[in-house]
């Protein structure tokens, strides 16, 4: 259509022409409409994210036991956290250890399992179900089962090792083996990661492998240059997801420590958390202990802010890497 044939838009009648203020009114109404549709989300965000975050930030600068009024103390909770708390560095060290091992383990084992599962043609559903099933086990039940299996005296694993003359370790009763035992449990329940990676592997076009094969690429080259780039975004998601799982590791460590200690105290009570020798004490557990057993809710809030900040860093990394990989961008 040429410019000369383009019909000119008739000017609106003077009586109906939108004045600048009328245009603003339309825009205002449109904004209100958008806000009205977004209001459930805005209310949810405000009540369940912004308010708790701001309130927690405020409490982190106070002495507060949730019964008496909070007393303003400035940054003393943060100073105490990194300079005087006797178990803070132990808790941070354990959490870092678990985060690294769980991330490497879950993603490595998940990828390996997914690559094996993708090759299986007969009975694929059965094998996929078997790998995924442990992920459905409630954390408390899974922990109880592992404490039973890894009981140093009566547990089936050590008894099996005993058949070959091998004296099994004390597992959850030995500070050196307690964290590895927790990591094994985390691997056992990593079915979700396996399923996600399996789905991404099945999405890789088969023609790419065929073409590479014709060009003489061996299995490693195919994995390195086809598989890895194709699943990179999902792999990145799995890594950050596992990091967050590691940073928030709580239930399994609480239950395993409590049950293995043999104490009759309630699971998670002050005397059983971290058993043995605080080797299973994680950052979230110490946060819970401070807030709910030692009545330092202000200090626990400061710990929560630190945990939030660290988790946020990894989330930002995830988002940036996903964007750089083209995930989430508009086509």
């Amino acid at each position, binding site marked *: 259509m040429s410019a000369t044939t383009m019909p000119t838009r008739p000017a609106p009648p003077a009586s109906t022409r939108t004045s600048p203020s009328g245009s603003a009114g339309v825009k*205002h109404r449109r*904004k209100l409409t958008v806000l009205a549709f977004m209001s459930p989300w*805005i209310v949810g965000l*405000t009540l369940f994210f*912004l*308010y708790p975050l*701001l*309130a927690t930030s*405020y*409490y982190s600068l106070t*002495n*507060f*036991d*949730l*019964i*008496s*009024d*909070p007393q303003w103390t400035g940054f003393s*909770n943060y100073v*105490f956290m990194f300079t*005087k*708390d*006797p178990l803070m560095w132990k808790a941070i060290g354990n959490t870092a250890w678990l985060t690294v091992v769980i991330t490497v383990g879950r993603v490595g084992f998940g990828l390996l399992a997914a690559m094996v599962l993708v090759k299986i043609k007969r009975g694929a559903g059965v094998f996929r179900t078997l790998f995924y099933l442990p992920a459905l086990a409630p954390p408390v039940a899974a922990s109880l089962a592992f404490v039973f299996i890894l*009981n*140093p*005296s*009566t547990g089936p694993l050590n008894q099996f090792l005993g058949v070959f003359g091998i004296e099994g370790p*004390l597992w959850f*009763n*030995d*500070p050196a083996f307690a964290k590895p035992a927790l990591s094994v449990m985390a691997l056992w329940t990593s079915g979700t990661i396996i399923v996600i990676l399996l789905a991404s592997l099945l999405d890789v076009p088969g023609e790419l492998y065929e073409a590479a094969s014709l060009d003489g690429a061996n299995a490693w080259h195919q994995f390195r240059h086809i598989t890895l780039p194709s699943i990179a975004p999902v792999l990145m998601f799995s890594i950050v997801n596992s990091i967050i799982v590691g940073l928030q590791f709580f239930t399994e460590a609480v239950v395993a420590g409590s049950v*293995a*200690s*043999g*104490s*009759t105290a*309630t699971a998670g009570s*002050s*005397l059983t*958390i*971290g058993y*043995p*020798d*605080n080797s299973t004490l994680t950052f979230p557990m110490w946060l819970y202990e401070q807030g*709910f*057993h*030692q*009545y*330092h809710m*202000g*200090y626990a809030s400061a710990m929560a802010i630190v945990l939030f900040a660290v988790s946020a860093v990894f989330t930002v990394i995830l988002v940036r890497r996903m964007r750089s990989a083209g995930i989430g961008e508009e086509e």
Partner: protein
Amino acid sequence: MKKASNFLGLGLVIALATTGCGGVGASKPTGAAPPPSDDQKVTLTVWSGFADRELDALQTVLDKFHSAHPNITIKSEGSQDDDKITQAIRGGNAPDLAISFTTDNIGQFCSSGSFQDLKPYLERDKVDLGKIPEATKDYTQFNGTRCAMPLLADVYGLYYNKAMFDAAGLTSPPKTMSELSDYARKLTQFNPDGSIKVAGFVPTPAFYENTIQTLAPQFGAKWQTPDGKSALSSDPGWKEMLKWQKDLTDFFGADKLTKFTAQSGQEYSADNDFQAGKIAMIMDGEYRTAFADREAKDLKYATAPFPVADSKPELYGTAYTTGTIAGIPKGAQNAGASWELLKYLTTDADALVSLSNSLKNVPTSTDALASPKLESTEQFKTFLDLFHGGKLANSPASPNGGAYLKIAQDFALKYVAGDSTDLDSGLQEVDKHIDDSAQLGK
């Protein structure tokens, strides 16, 4: 417009945050609420840690109170621990009366006002606290604030298997720690593969009732210096205690002992190792007599004061005590009626005796202890005598709950297992950690 919206949103959030910044309110003395008049119908909610048989025993006493006060109906809820009680108070949904199984949190209950100060009630009704033994009075108050009353006490002593003693030629209970070790060695039996079949005594900290706080009084070990600092490195009792535990652990072998305790039966079940004949001697509370009588009828056992440090034989007869406590939580809807019930449960001799006979705990008033209705066996009498003996000890109350107990017990476990070898510097570090922890919240 956009900026205005942003400011509006931020303002809303800050307003929400600041309006929610208060706790449930600071503790303020409110005076004694009057009891309800006879024609005023009141329903009280009572929370306790009791369950099953023990909850039924409490119900029997509550029913008697209801008979005397028909206008006060009581709703009893069992299986409630301190965490639940604290959360309910924090949430503004507190029961009218809370019964706690532990004294670990008394410091926080009293200092924060979680449990109401009972002084106005005690003065108004002229309650004679002189009828409550001193150590028991001590663990129901903190820094001069009495926010709880004792409702039966636990006293700790030695239980020993008489059949095993007879077989080993032992005729009387040990009185010193070295005697206890000798007896333990004689009574221990190993399997052919070297594992422990029967343990004479398990010295592991935190195993059953063999905790750091129950054992410390037997060595005269003090938790604090006169100026309130942690005293574990300066009081020689701690060193003697830990060395004794380590020495006996080494006799068994730390790993063998860990494997043995890992397969032990649950403490409060018929599988309890002492009741099952797998352990010859244990440290335990008077309540074990009820469990043993019911669950291990064939067990031939006796009780005695727990042995004391060789260096302090004069301590013989010392016993750790703690117990069940009861208080009126902050926010209780019917505080006046709650006090009437609390007063009945903790000062009425018949109520205490009834509970004691059912639960096999030591009654916490001199009237109840002297009551002819109080049932006692030879084994239970040991604990009544210990309670009367004037050598009771308990752990100091602390505003941050049992933080110091965890720090000390963590180290004890580590040292006894052989994972820490320098006892002096280890105890100094424990002191520093306890003192540092006490600074938080000040």
